[in-house]
């Protein structure tokens, strides 16, 4: 990336006073002055620094951050306590080691992360200098606010630049924002007021830096004239300039103030549920520690009281006095805290982070979650909530782009009340014949459209009405689609047509006219026959459309298929080639861009021949129908018919758009003044702009409407089915129409297909009172369906307005209650805010684990509100992905992500945490039991170094490996049997009871590990550290073998780490015992290990201890397997079978399950009943009686849509084979 900064000093510009909206003036006049005289000095420079530390500040800052964690302070406190001689349990210096190791490891991790950030900063900030024209090479970091910067084609933009000049004569500059939001279409930026950098003397006033990529406002003040500009004039840092030779402008935001940097959030830190639960267990451990210390202190006092005189082995203090027993008790309490501190798992937090890093590694490496088309892996953006994926109870899904492809296909349209189907993929051989046979009979009939695939090269002649022409013109021009050629450079089309820009195309154009060709086809006021050839459509260059929304692309492509090819779009004009081959070039007067409040967009053009000012508007029917001109009854009839068609489309699951036209009369220029005033406004700009747009969009004449199909993604029904079997509630929240949403819900099996055709009432819940009654009525109805012991399974369909009422505080309870009864929830016409409120409400009231999945900017709120946010990187940019915790590319990936990875991660982590607690308690209790034999004086019979090594080296790797790699059931079986997922939802892996059982087991095992050696060596001449050696060893074996019992599958890695840990133990212990003669005063384990290992008793003790310690757990495992075999156990057994056996068993399992499903008494969850209840606002959908589902095998459910289309629209049936066109 290169950058040129103009350094020639030039004329002055007035430095604006520094009010709150940032004011930018040119830097050029201040080139030679000192920094403090620079007018723009208070703005951020362009150097970007995302790394937190420098080489020097690393240590203090990092330490500061680490000590913000309570745990670290606790451990430092304990280490400090060790320096008090009366209290200390270990050599003070040595006691610092664990905390130092933890701090060091964390610091290394932080440093590594920071280094990576530093590297990426460096990559971004160093650019190769190159000089050209008057612009001078600068590094990115040297650019400042107020500089003039020129960027050349294919350069990366170094800062947020207000575009002031472009090489394009129209003042247009294109940029590709893929770096920023992943959208690959070109964004058009245009110069508001051209300038010459040498004479720029205006002041730029703009809003404060913010992270909204789609919004910017400000104005240029020059000689008291204000010129407003918006996002359409701003070049964003990180984007690439395309199709434009050079563009220059003034830097308004630099460095960290740029929109891309403000959008660049760090991975979010979320606390997972297991972790917050674990914190309670840590508190339990604290309590346990307190009790043990109290026992120690009281025990010591009592023990002291048994002596009437002072024994020889009491150490007087320095004055020769004995410590009073109560004071001694307090001292011992503190000593005990130091001694037993490990019971609070110091390294657990670090281990969890390591484990999660490993888990994330494996998730992102999964080849099944890789998308070939986009070359994208699964991304984990939040690193610490992997195990939450295993506990999801509610999935909230967006529809468009999530369940569906968001690749729009034009399917149907209605023009002037007549309905035309448009089939995409007819069998080509058949329809060619049909076409020809139909040609004669159908020519002249209105309801056949010339929908031909371009590749055929055949021509067909049909009649058109004028409105039809207008309709297709509107389709072609009423959008913001940019045309470009499909070359690597992405040069925008400079069509040769341009030279004949305002030539009136006539029949003399190059197009072959077979029959009579009428002149001035552009006017189209008369009915005419029109002939066109496919070859002419191919054109000299293949055009390529860059649309911001897939709907627009579909419409433009559809228009092209019917011969109305959009050839070029610039801010000032738009060219369309008509089927006749002539080209019309309209002058574009204004574009009223789309916004979700109006839910429509308009374009105002001037007709090249009639010079009429025409407004074409397209939008949702809700936004259009009320704005039609109501004059003629004829148009009212058309509107009614169209509305009927629209409802039908919606029933088919098509997305609908209405098209209107209006010829604007004299008052256009009055309106223009208002409009410009609105555009220049800074306060309430959006509102004013919206209002002026709405003023224009009145008295519209309906042209027609389109139905666009958004196909389901592959495997969506299967995924939803699997999620449901896994006990996950799937809710769909969409902004689409009710009918569309319901239809999609049926086709993706969210709702049961048997209900199709039953009327679904449009919600008209107007007041809260009505809503309340309805809710209570519905809730009262629910038990009625509950005639048998089976639970009702109800689907809830609800619309945005009703939802808004239900989300009010006093109706929330009822709504939540209703939701718990529903098997499927479908909310349509919801706003982004409502989506997030639904998620928040269910999450907080039901305390369930929620997951939100979506692909667009409208899902961001929901994604952030849910416990786990999943973004789909789809057609609508990267905003959802940016806000998400996990990013996938297809909806079907959710299945493996949850059912396999979520399940694994949760089980692994839960087991690892439980094991960690167990391990620490088991080991520490050894020391505790010894206190009963050393007068509670805080003696450790194990050398402190060994205790450190024990935790750091000997027993740390196995649990981490266990947490990353253990696998109870294989991925294949987990995918086959989604119900295995249910365990995680009910916290089957990590329960309070599991924790206490583990703690009890730890107590038992530590008792065994202590008392077997104790009784063995009782009364012998053994010394303290020699006693500690077999205890330590037996404890190690117990802890390692305990894990071995828990490990479900042994791979090479498992073997290496487990065996390695034991080997390391012996090697390190032997080496330490051999080398350390008096390096660790006063305790000194010199040669104890060697001495013990030459004694057969040592082995006898270790074997006996290990066997006795592990016997109960092993027996329990065996008993549980026999008496109460869990599903997981069975699944494991199936897993272990040879492949053909496994399939048989899986089939049998499923059969059994279906059998249960067909008898409600056997299984409540899958029992189904069928009846329908309707209320104005809530539609309850129910499944039929069990009698219908007697078959024990799974019957594949047919996709209802084809038959549905037939039944709803019989008159279209004959045409279906005929009308096909490949878009």
């Amino acid at each position, binding site marked *: 990336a290169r950058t040129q900064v103009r350094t020639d000093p030039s004329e002055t510009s007035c430095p604006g006073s520094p009010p709150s909206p940032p004011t930018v003036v040119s830097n050029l006049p201040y080139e030679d002055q000192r920094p403090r005289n620079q007018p723009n000095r208070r703005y951020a420079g362009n150097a970007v620094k995302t790394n937190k530390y420098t080489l020097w500040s690393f240590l203090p800052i990092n330490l500061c951050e680490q000590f913000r964690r309570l745990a670290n302070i606790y451990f430092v406190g304990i280490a400090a306590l060790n320096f008090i001689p009366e209290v200390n349990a270990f050599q003070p210096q040595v006691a610092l080691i664990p905390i130092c190791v933890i701090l060091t490891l964390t610091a290394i991790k932080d440093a590594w992360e920071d280094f990576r950030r530093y590297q990426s900063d460096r990559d971004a900030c160093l650019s190769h200098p190159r000089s050209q024209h008057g612009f001078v090479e600068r590094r990115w970091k040297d650019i400042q606010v107020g500089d003039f910067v020129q960027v050349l084609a294919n350069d990366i933009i170094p800062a947020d630049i207000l575009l002031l000049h472009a090489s394009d004569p129209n003042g247009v500059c294109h940029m590709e924002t893929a770096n920023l939001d992943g959208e690959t279409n070109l964004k058009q930026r245009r110069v508001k007021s051209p300038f010459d950098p040498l004479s720029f003397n205006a002041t730029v006033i703009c809003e404060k830096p913010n992270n909204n990529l789609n919004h910017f406002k400000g104005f240029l003040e020059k000689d008291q004239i204000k010129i407003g500009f918006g996002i359409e004039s701003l070049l964003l840092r990180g984007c690439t300039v395309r199709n434009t030779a050079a563009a220059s402008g003034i830097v308004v935001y630099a460095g960290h103030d740029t929109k891309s940097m403000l959008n660049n959030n760090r991975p979010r830190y979320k606390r997972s549920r297991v972790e917050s639960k674990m914190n309670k267990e840590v508190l339990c451990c604290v309590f346990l520690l307190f009790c043990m210390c109290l026992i120690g202190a009281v025990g010591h006092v009592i023990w002291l009281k048994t002596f009437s005189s002072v024994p020889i082995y009491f*150490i007087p203090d320095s004055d020769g006095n004995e410590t009073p027993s109560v004071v001694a008790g307090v001292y011992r309490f503190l000593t005990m805290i130091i001694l037993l501190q490990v019971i609070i798992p110091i390294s657990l937090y670090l281990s969890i982070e390591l484990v999660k890093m490993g888990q994330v590694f*494996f998730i992102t490496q999964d080849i099944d979650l890789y998308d070939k088309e986009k*070359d994208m892996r699964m991304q984990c953006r939040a690193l610490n909530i992997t195990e939450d994926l295993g506990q999801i109870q509610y999935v909230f899904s967006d529809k468009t782009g999530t369940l569906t492809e968001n690749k729009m296909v034009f399917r149907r349209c209605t023009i002037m009340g007549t309905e035309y189907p448009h089939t995409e993929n007819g069998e080509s051989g058949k329809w060619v014949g049909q076409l020809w046979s139909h040609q004669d009979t159908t020519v002249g009939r209105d309801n056949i459209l010339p929908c031909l695939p371009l590749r055929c090269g055949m021509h067909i002649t049909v009649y058109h009405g004028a409105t039809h022409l207008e309709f297709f013109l509107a389709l072609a021009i009423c959008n913001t689609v940019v045309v470009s050629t499909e070359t690597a450079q992405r040069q925008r089309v400079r069509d040769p047509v341009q030279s004949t820009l305002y030539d009136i195309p006539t029949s003399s154009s190059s197009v072959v006219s077979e029959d009579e060709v009428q002149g001035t086809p552009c006017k189209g006021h008369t009915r005419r026959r029109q002939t066109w050839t496919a070859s002419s459509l191919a054109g000299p260059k293949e055009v390529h459309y860059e649309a911001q929304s897939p709907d627009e692309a579909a419409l433009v492509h559809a228009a092209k298929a019917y011969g109305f090819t959009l050839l070029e779009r610039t801010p000032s004009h738009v060219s369309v080639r008509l089927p006749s081959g002539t080209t019309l070039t309209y002058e574009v007067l204004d574009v009223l861009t789309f916004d979700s409040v109006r839910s429509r967009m308009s374009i105002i053009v001037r007709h090249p021949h009639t010079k009429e000012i025409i407004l074409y508007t397209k939008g949702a029917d809700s936004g259009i129908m009320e704005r039609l001109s109501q004059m003629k009854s004829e148009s009212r009839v058309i509107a009614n018919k169209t509305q009927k068609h629209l409802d039908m489309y919606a029933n088919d699951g098509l997305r609908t758009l209405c098209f209107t036209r209006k010829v604007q009369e004299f008052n256009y220029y009055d309106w223009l003044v208002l409009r410009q005033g609105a555009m220049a406004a800074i306060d309430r700009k959006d509102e004013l702009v919206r209002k002026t747009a709405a003023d224009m969009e009145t008295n519209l004449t309906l042209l027609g409407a389109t139905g666009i199909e958004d196909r389901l993604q592959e495997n969506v029904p299967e995924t939803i089915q699997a999620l449901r079997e896994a006990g996950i509630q799937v809710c769909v929240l969409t902004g689409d129409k009710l009918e569309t949403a319901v239809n999609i819900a049926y086709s993706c099996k969210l709702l049961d297909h048997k209900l199709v055709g039953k009327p679904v009432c449009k919600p008209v819940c107007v007041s809260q009172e009505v809503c309340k009654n309805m809710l209570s009525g519905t809730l009262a109805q629910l038990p009625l369906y509950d005639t048998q012991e089976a639970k009702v399974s109800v689907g809830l369909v609800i619309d945005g307005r009703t939802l808004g009422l239900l989300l009010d505080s006093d109706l929330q309870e009822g709504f939540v209650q209703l939701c718990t009864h529903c098997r499927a929830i479908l909310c349509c016409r919801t706003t982004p805010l409502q989506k997030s409120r639904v998620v928040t409400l269910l999450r907080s009231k039901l305390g369930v684990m929620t997951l939100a999945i979506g692909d667009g900017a409208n899902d961001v709120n929901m994604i952030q509100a849910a416990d786990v946010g999943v973004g789909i990187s789809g057609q609508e940019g990267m905003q959802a992905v940016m806000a998400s915790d996990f990013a996938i590319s297809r909806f079907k990936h959710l299945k493996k992500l949850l059912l396999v990875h979520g399940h694994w991660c949760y089980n692994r982590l839960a087991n690892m945490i439980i094991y960690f607690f167990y391990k620490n308690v088991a080991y520490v209790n050894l020391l505790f039991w010894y206190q009963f034999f050393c007068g509670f004086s805080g003696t450790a019979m194990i050398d402190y170094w060994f205790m450190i090594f024990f935790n750091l080296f000997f027993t740390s790797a196995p649990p981490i490996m266990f947490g990353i790699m253990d696998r109870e059931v294989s991925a294949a079986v987990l995918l086959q049997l989604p119900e295995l997922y249910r365990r995680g939802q009910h916290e089957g892996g990590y329960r309070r009871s599991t924790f206490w059982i583990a703690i009890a087991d730890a107590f038992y095992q530590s008792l065994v590990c202590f008392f077997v050696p104790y009784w063995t060596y009782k009364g012998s*001449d053994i*010394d303290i550290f020699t006693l500690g050696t077999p205890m330590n060893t037996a404890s190690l074996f117990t802890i390692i073998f305990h894990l071995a019992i828990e490990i479900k599958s042994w791979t090479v890695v498992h073997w290496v780490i487990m065996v390695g840990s034991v080997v390391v133990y012996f090697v390190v212990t032997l080496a330490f015992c051999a080398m350390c003669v008096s390096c660790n005063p006063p305790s000194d384990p010199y040669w104890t290990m060697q001495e013990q290992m030459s004694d*057969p008793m040592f082995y*006898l003790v270790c074997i006996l201890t290990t066997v006795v310690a592990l016997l109960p757990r092993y027996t329990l495992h065996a008993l549980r397997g026999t008496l109460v*075999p869990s599903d997981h156990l*069975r699944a494991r057994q199936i897993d272990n079978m040879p492949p053909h056996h496994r399939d048989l068993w899986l089939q049998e399992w499923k059969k059994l399950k279906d059998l249960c499903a067909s008898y409600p008494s056997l299984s409540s969850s899958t029992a189904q009943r069928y009846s329908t209840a309707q209320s104005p606002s809530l539609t309850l959908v129910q499944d039929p009686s069990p009698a219908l589902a007697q078959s024990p095998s799974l019957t594949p459910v047919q996709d209802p849509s084809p038959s549905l289309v037939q039944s709803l629209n019989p008159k279209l049936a004959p045409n279906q084979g005929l009308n096909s066109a490949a878009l």
Partner: protein
Amino acid sequence: MAKNQVGAGPFARRPDNSAFKQQRLPAWSPSLTPHTVLSVFYGLSLICVLLGIWLLITVQNTYQLKVDYTNGSCKKCFEMRKYPANATKNCICTANFKVPKAFLGDVFFYYGLINFHQNLRRYMDSRDDAQLVGRKKSLKFPSTYCKPFAYDENGLPIAPCGAVANSKFNDSFRLVYHQLDGPAVTVPLHRRGITWYTDKNIKFHNPPTNTTLQEAFQGTAQPLYWQRPVYDLDPEDPNNNGFINDDLIVWMREAAFPNFKKLYGILNRAHALFSHGLPAGNYSIIITYNFPVQYFQGKKEVVVSTVTWFGGQNYFLPIAYLVSSGMTFIAAIVLTVIHVKVGRDGKNMEE
């Protein structure tokens, strides 16, 4: 990470399809089938019972005998040691005992202390290993751990410093065998070689000196309770003096429990009378009674014992093995019953 992004080709970011990364490493998942579980249980039970019986037979052939001399025949000395004023007075007493059956093989003589906590944290820390290993600097400046037994009233460093050395057990014994038909014979004991080899040769060293040992300890004081200086602990063997005195080394290896014994000597079987061990008959111990135990309600005893390949007389291990064998067996029976009753039909495979 940067490399991944830079990588070229259509599938640049495709993850490796390796068994490790796809978590498809060949794995052995041990399933607890009735076959394996029951055989493990029965096998363990069998091994334990065999080991237990073997150990029991071995233990049956060991002998151990304890003679408590705290009060009984040594009442006089016990009373005398109650008063610190008598600390310097000698007191000798005799304890008699009878060996009913000959102790065959190597016989070990221990002294035992009851209720003496050598394992108190501050007591056991009160020593300076650096001093004991013979470092000159530590000799003059003992470790702070030795406080308040680091310097005497005159400010002289104590050698060996610390409470452990200060409280060294200082009774001495002479064992006499009363032959039925002959004179009383003093049982010959090895008083050397009763320590760990490494302790004697590596861990404990006298301070380096060119002249006499006394010279080496010049400028140090003897521990408070000691009657003799460290360089003169063993008047009979000059090589057994200073820090490498065997009794001192044995004492400095702090006992793990409050009731313990420490090796005093090993029967010297070179003597014809004792070549097979300790013959049956009457014995008496002549005790130089120095060590006061009444302050901690303690007891002193002499332990005579033979040892086996796995240590002294110890009934716990064999019994423990037998008991755990029994428990394993019971668990195995229970599991078998359950397996037969519940898990017999093929579907409920036992884990």
